[in-house]
């Protein structure tokens, strides 16, 4: 046990920088996932067939490609095609776009939970469709899907380890822990990696619990 503690204190700088990189990857990917996910969900429930189809294709493509493959395409594929995308951009985009597909599906289910009558009422009051969606439907949809979004973001935090373990080789928490493990031959390094991820996922849990109580649908 003291060994494990010493490992942490002696390599604290490296563990902390790894955690910081992971936190940044997660933060940027979160913004991308929420924005793109909401947009795709809006497409999927739009009254225009073409938009619905685009949204559907997005979800099927990004949900059915393994994250690792997506990252390799985004990084090596795009670079081979001549566009010098950085590992950082490819990593955060890959993780964000991948998670966006799941978030879109969650929000879509939330939209369906809002009674059809409300949309009809809004439209008949003269609101345009995007306006009705933004003002009436989405705020209610978000409320109902907050717990689901929380689970998806926790999954995203954990998926971020794939970004560091892949060819992108970003110095994230897992990568730094592996470096420490290989330098010290102490497997406890992975325990501290687990603790770091736990720290992030618990923060996400707490954040979403707060959102949940604050915006709970009162019945």
């Amino acid at each position: 046990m003291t060994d494990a503690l010493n490992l942490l204190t002696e390599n604290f700088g490296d563990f902390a920088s790894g955690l910081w990189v992971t936190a940044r990857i997660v933060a940027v990917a979160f913004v991308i996932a929420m924005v793109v996910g909401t947009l795709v969900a809006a497409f999927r429930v739009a009254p225009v067939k073409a938009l619905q189809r685009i949204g559907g294709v997005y979800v099927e493509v990004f949900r059915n490609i393994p994250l690792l493959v997506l990252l390799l395409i985004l990084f090596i594929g795009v670079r081979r095609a001549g566009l010098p995308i950085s590992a950082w951009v490819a990593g955060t985009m890959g993780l964000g776009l991948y998670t966006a597909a799941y978030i879109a599906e969650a929000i879509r289910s939330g939209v369906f939970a809002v009674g059809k009558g409300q949309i009809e009422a809004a439209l008949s009051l003269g609101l345009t469709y995007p306006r009705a969606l933004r003002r009436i439907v989405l705020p209610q949809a978000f409320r109902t899907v907050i717990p689901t979004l929380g689970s998806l973001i926790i999954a995203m935090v954990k998926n971020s380890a794939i970004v560091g373990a892949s060819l992108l080789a970003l110095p994230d928490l897992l990568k730094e822990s592996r470096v420490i493990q290989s330098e010290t031959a102490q497997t406890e390094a992975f325990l501290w990696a687990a603790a770091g991820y736990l720290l992030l996922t618990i923060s996400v849990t707490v954040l979403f619990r707060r959102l949940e109580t604050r915006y709970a649908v009162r019945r």
Partner: protein
Amino acid sequence: MQRQDRRWRLIAIAMMVFATLVLAACGDDEEETSDEPDVEVEEFPADTTMGEIQEAGEINLGVKFDVPPFGFNNPQSGEVEGFDVDLGRYIAARLGVEPVFREANSDNRIPLLVDGTIDLILSTMTITEERDLEIDFSEPYYVANGDVLVPTDSDIASLEDLAGNTVCTAIGSTYQSTIKDEVPDAELRLVDGYSECLELIQTDAVDAVSTDNVILTGMVIQDDTLELLDLDYTEEPYGVGIPDGDAEMKEFVDESVTQFIDDGTWQETYDEWVGQYIPEEQQQGPPEITLDEALALFPLEK
């Protein structure tokens, strides 16, 4: 009629599943072949590790699968080949057993040896005191030198030029800390295997790759838009990884390495995998360094 159709469909599906399994088994990460080197087989008592291996009839050797010319999966023959592989065959032949080559990279080779998945490591492994804490080493069987690989049109010409540039090397390799010490301002990209470093430098995702010159030479052979800087900034004696504390096994492997060198097999193997690809003045003979001298090159940090 319909029932019969369904039965045929079931049989077809079963056959497809079976075929997939057979194909998957063929693509397994182990290779067996039987062109054995011509050496005398020694019999060992059953209570030694060598005796157990002879009882089993095969020895599991951890080699790299992506590092020409030491251990690589030849796409043409479908077999692993290279200097490390040939030394492995030589050791197996002395035991009179089949060598089974398993993939072991810089990061997982020591755990694989410790948990008994492999009996020996022959994976371009530099002898270091730190690794010596977990496993034992044979006498050095090859001495590589640290070098840097860059694209031919690169501005990098020396070790100092790496500062501010991205450098790829394998996680768990000696270079992980060497580069940090020598060029603290270089940005390290640590990946699982050297084939990934090659991919990264080919797509300009990193500015340089640094590791043993023999590994880098393998990359130049594959891609002539890359070149070595010929810096030779470290000396990296390779040793065979042996389970910790197995003195009899160490004695046997040491004898094998000595015999491999003394009977001329070392030179043949060197010429086949390394010598023919580099100019004569850069060629070298068998290692003259001893295990203790090698250990002193990479002492424990504290």
